[in-house]
C-alpha cells in the first residue's frame, strides 16, 4: 500500500505540472472586414471596408476604415466607383445620390486594397415590398385597454422568394421625450422602456431588431427601447443580408465563417427591399 501511495502522490504532482492552462493569447492577426448593404430604392452608401483590430487595444471604428481601397459596384451595364470621406465613421458611397438601388438586379462588389488584394461579392436585390397595414401613430405603452391601437397587427406585401423579414425599430429621440410629459424627470433613464433582463449595454444602440417568417406581426412592445419618436423599418433581405443578420444578432460574439458572403475577406455584401414608417411611442401615465 505504501508504494501505491507514493505512486499516487507522484502522479498527482506530475499532472499538476503538465496540465497548466494556456495564457490568453495576445497575438494579432489582421483580417479585412467588409460590411456592405444595398437597400432597394435608396442611394448606395456606407460600404464599409475595414481592418480588424487587436483585442488588446481599444477599438476605434473610424481608424479601422481602409480609406485607400478602390471600391466599385457593378451592374450588368453600369460601373459605379465609390468614394469615402477623409474622416468620420461613414464608409464608401456613390457620389450621385439620385442613383437609387434597383429591385431584382444583380450587383457585384469589387474592392482592391492598396496592396493589391482583391475582394468581391455578389448580391441580387429582392423585389420591392409595400405597407398593407402601417404602424399606428401614436402608440401607447403599456397598452391602454380602453384605447387599443387602431391597427394590430401591422403587415406588408410579400417579396417573391423571401422567407424571413427583419423588423427594425430605430429610436429617433432618446433625449427629448420627457419634454412632452408633465412631472416627468428629464433623465434619459425615465424614457427607457423596461423589460426583463436588460442591462446598460442594451441601450448603447438606438436600434432593435426582430426576425419573422411572416408578412404580418403584432406589435411586440419589447422591441421598443425608448418612449418617443421611432422609425419602424421592414427589410426583405437576400440570403447574404439574412445570414449576416444572424451573425450580428443571434450567435455569440465569435465570427462564424459560414455566414460570410464575400470572397477574400470576412463580411457581407447583401441587399434588401425596405419600407419605413415613423410613429410616436407614448408613455401610458398613471
Amino acid at each position: 500500500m505504501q508504494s501505491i501511495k507514493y505512486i499516487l502522490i507522484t502522479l498527482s504532482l506530475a499532472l499538476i505540472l503538465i496540465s497548466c492552462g494556456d495564457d490568453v493569447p495576445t497575438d494579432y492577426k489582421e483580417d479585412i472586414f467588409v460590411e456592405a448593404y444595398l437597400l432597394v430604392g435608396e442611394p448606395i452608401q456606407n460600404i464599409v471596408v475595414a481592418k480588424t483590430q487587436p483585442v488588446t487595444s481599444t477599438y476605434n471604428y473610424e481608424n479601422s476604415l481602409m480609406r485607400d481601397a478602390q471600391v466599385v459596384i457593378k451592374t450588368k451595364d453600369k460601373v459605379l466607383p465609390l468614394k469615402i470621406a477623409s474622416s468620420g465613421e461613414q464608409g464608401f458611397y456613390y457620389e450621385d445620390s439620385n442613383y437609387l438601388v434597383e429591385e431584382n438586379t444583380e450587383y457585384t462588389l469589387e474592392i482592391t486594397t492598396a496592396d493589391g488584394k482583391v475582394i468581391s461579392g455578389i448580391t441580387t436585390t429582392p423585389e420591392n415590398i409595400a405597407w398593407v397595414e402601417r404602424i399606428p401613430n401614436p402608440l401607447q405603452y403599456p397598452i391602454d385597454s380602453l384605447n387599443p391601437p387602431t391597427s394590430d397587427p401591422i403587415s406588408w406585401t410579400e417579396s417573391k422568394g423571401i422567407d424571413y423579414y427583419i423588423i427594425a425599430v430605430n429610436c429617433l429621440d432618446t433625449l427629448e421625450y420627457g419634454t412632452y410629459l408633465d412631472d416627468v424627470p428629464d433623465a434619459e433613464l425615465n424614457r427607457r422602456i423596461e423589460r426583463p433582463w436588460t442591462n446598460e449595454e442594451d441601450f448603447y444602440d438606438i436600434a432593435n431588431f426582430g426576425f419573422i417568417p411572416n408578412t404580418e406581426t403584432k406589435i411586440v412592445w419589447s422591441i421598443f427601447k425608448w418612449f418617443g419618436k421611432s422609425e419602424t423599418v421592414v427589410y426583405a433581405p437576400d440570403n447574404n443580408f439574412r445570414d449576416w443578420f444572424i451573425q450580428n444578432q443571434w450567435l455569440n460574439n465569435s465570427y462564424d465563417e459560414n455566414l460570410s458572403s464575400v470572397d477574400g475577406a470576412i463580411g457581407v455584401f447583401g441587399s434588401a427591399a425596405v419600407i419605413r414608417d415613423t410613429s410616436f411611442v407614448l408613455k401610458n401615465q398613471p
Partner: protein
Amino acid sequence: MLLIAINLSANNAALSTEFASMSGFVYDSESKETLIGATVYLVGTQKGAYTNKAGFYSVTDIKPGKYTIRITYVGYEKLEYDVTLKKGQSFQKEIFLKSAIVSTNSITVTAEREVEKRQITVSKVNVPIQQIKEIRIGGESDVFRTLQLLPGILTSSQISSGLYVRGGSPDQNLVLLDDAVVYNPTHLFGFLSTFNSDAIKDVEMIKGGFPAEYGGRMSSVLSITQNNGSQKEVQGIGSLGIISSKLSLEGPLPGDIDGSWFLGGRRTYFDLITSFMAENPEDPFPDFNFYDLNGKLTLNLSPRDKLFISGFNSADALNYDSYGVAFNMDVGNSLAALKWTHIWADNYFSNLIVSRSHYFNKFSGDQTGFEFLINNTITDNSIKYKTEWLASDMLTVKAGIEYTNFHFEYLQDYSGDISGDRDTTTANVKTDLDLDDNNYSMYLQTNLQTNQHLSLQLGGRANYWELSEQFTFDPRVAAKYQFNEGFAIKLAWGLFHQNLRLATQPDFSFFDTWMPSDTTVPGPGRADHYILSIETNPMEELDLNFDFYYKKLHNINEINRQSLNGDKVSDVLFFGKGRAYGAEVFLQKKFGRLTGWVGYGLGWIYAQFDTINGGKEFRPKYDRLHDLKIVAQYKLSEDWDVGATFTFQTGQSYTGATSRFQTKLPGQSYGVGKIVPSQKYGLRLPPSHQLNVNASYKFALFGLPAKLILDVYNLYNRRDIWFRYYNTQEEVTTVEDVKLLPIIPTVSIEVKF
C-alpha cells in the same frame, strides 16, 4: 428460424447430456429481491456462473459427484452448501443470501475471478448500487455523476451530467432502463440524471467494444435495472434533501399472487419554497420544478416464468412571466416496458420485451402578443426477443431479433401566431414535420472457451433502416487469454453503427432534438473500436486493469446553428469525422471497510468537419488529456460512514481570438463587437479539480432506522471555470471567466420504515 434452431438444439442438448446441471435464482433473503451478478461457484472446480439480469444462474456439464457450492455477492454474506449431483440430473436451487454489514471476505474475491470463463466483457464496469448511493454531489446521489468518476468518462463541465465516453458524445450512449431505451435522462437541463438511485438495483456500464446483443449506438452501453420490490413485506424509505425529496415504497403483491411491486418518486420544491417568499411582481422568480416516478411490478408466474412490468416518468418545467414576456419550458420522459423471462431448460432461456419510450421538449412563449413555439418529440415502440443458450461449459450462444418503430415530431413556429389561423406565413418556413422510421435488427453471438486459457466471442448484428434505406452489418470480435488467475489479456474489435442523430448543445440539454438519418445524410454514423485490456490482481482484494483504445468515428454530426428551417436532416446538421485514442488505469477495491477506486485516463480526441474551423481538425470542448479520479468510502463503525471523491483533469478547451471588428446593420448606431476566432478549442483553461466529502450517521428516529447525511460539495472552494469568453460590448475588449459552483454544504435525512 435461427432462434427456433437454437431452441431445439438447446432442449436436445439438455436432455441428452451425460452430465448434471444446476440452475435457479439468487435472492436477497430479506426482500426476496433477485440479485444481479452474484457468483455461484463449485468449490475445487473451474465451474461457476454469474446470475444474469433476471437473477438467474445456470451451470452445466457438471460431472456427477459431491460438491460444495459457494455463493458470493458484494455486500452479502458468503453462503456454502453441499450437494450431490447425479448423472443427467437437472438440479434447481433457489438461493437466498443475507446482507452483510461489512464484507471483508477475501475468498469472495477469489471466487469471483474463477467463474464464467466464457464471458468476455471488455471495458465493463459494475458500480455497486450501494456505492452509487453513498457518492453524493450537492446532496444528491446520482448514477450519471458516479459514472463520471470512472476513467475515460468525461463531461463538458462540472454541472453537466452528460457522459462523454472515450471521445463519444452523450447521444452515442445506449441508455437502457429495464431493457428499454431512454432518450434524454436528465433533470435541471443536464445537471442531474433522471434516475432516482433508490429505485435502482443494478448499473452496468460498458465503455466500448460491447457485444452484438447491443446495437444502435456508437460509443457505450449503460444498462440500469430497477428494483423489483420486496417480496416479504411492505417497506419504504423517504429522504429530505436540499434539491429534492424522495419516497419509495415496495412490497409483496396481495393475496396469493406471487410477486412484488415497487413505487418510487422524487420531486424538487424550488417552486414551493418561492411561493412562500415575497417577490417583486415586476421581477418575479421563475417557477421551476422537476419530478420523476419509477414503478415496477414483478410476477412470478411459475418457477420458469417471470413477468416484469416497468414504468418510468420524469418531467422538468420552467415558467416565467413578467413585463409582457412569458415563456414555458417543459421537458420529460415516459417509459413503459413489459418483459417476460421464460426458462425453457436449465441452460436455455429467453426474454421477450415490449416497450414504449417517449421524450419531449417544448418551449412556448409570448412576447407581448407575439407567440412562438418549439416542440420536439421522439417515440420509440419496440419489441425484442432475446435468447441465451448455455450450450456447454465451453459454449454460450445468444441470439435475438428486434423491431423498433420511431416517431419523430418537430414543430418550430416563429410566425407570431402559434394558433395557425393566419394565412400570411411565408412558404416552407414553419417547420412542422412528422416522421416515422422503422428499424429491423437481428444478432447472433457466440462465446467459446477453446481451452483453459483462451476464450473467444464472435458476433454480428444486422440492421435495416427503412427511412434511409440503409442496411448495416456490425461484426464484433473479442478474445481473452487468461495467463493465470491474476492476469488476463483481452482484445476487442467491432463496428458500431448509429442511425439516430441528436442536435444538441454541450452545456444545455433542453433543446435536444433526436432525428433519424435520412437519404440526405452521408450515411449512418459509425465507430470502429479497437481495445486492448489487461486485467490483473496485484494484491488480495484489489483489481488493477489497464485499457488501451482507439476509436475511429465516421459521419458524426454537429448542430448547424445557422439553420433557420428545413425539411431534411442535412439542413440542420453538419457532418464530419473524428478519432479518439488513449489509455486508462483502474485500480478498484470492492470489499472491506475501505472501498473505492483510483482511475486515470490519458486521452486524445480529434474532430474534423468541412464547415467548422475552416475544415481543419480540432479537439472538442470536452477533450481532456489527463483525467484522474479517486473515490473512497470508509466504514468507520456500525453507525458512521465517511467518503470522498476527488477529480483532477486537464483544463477544458476554449477558443481564443486573433482580432476583433464591429459590425453594424443598417440603422445601428453602435453595432456589435465580434472577435475573429483562432484555432477552434485550441487553448486550455487551467486544470479542473474538486474534492467532495460526505459522512453519514445511522440512528433511530421514532424507532425507525434513519440516516443523517452530511455532504460538502467542492470542499476547498475551487471555482473552476465553466467557460471563458471575450466581452466585446465595450470598445475595450475584456476576457471574462464564468465560474462554476462554490463550496456547498448540504444536510439530508433518510428514514426507513
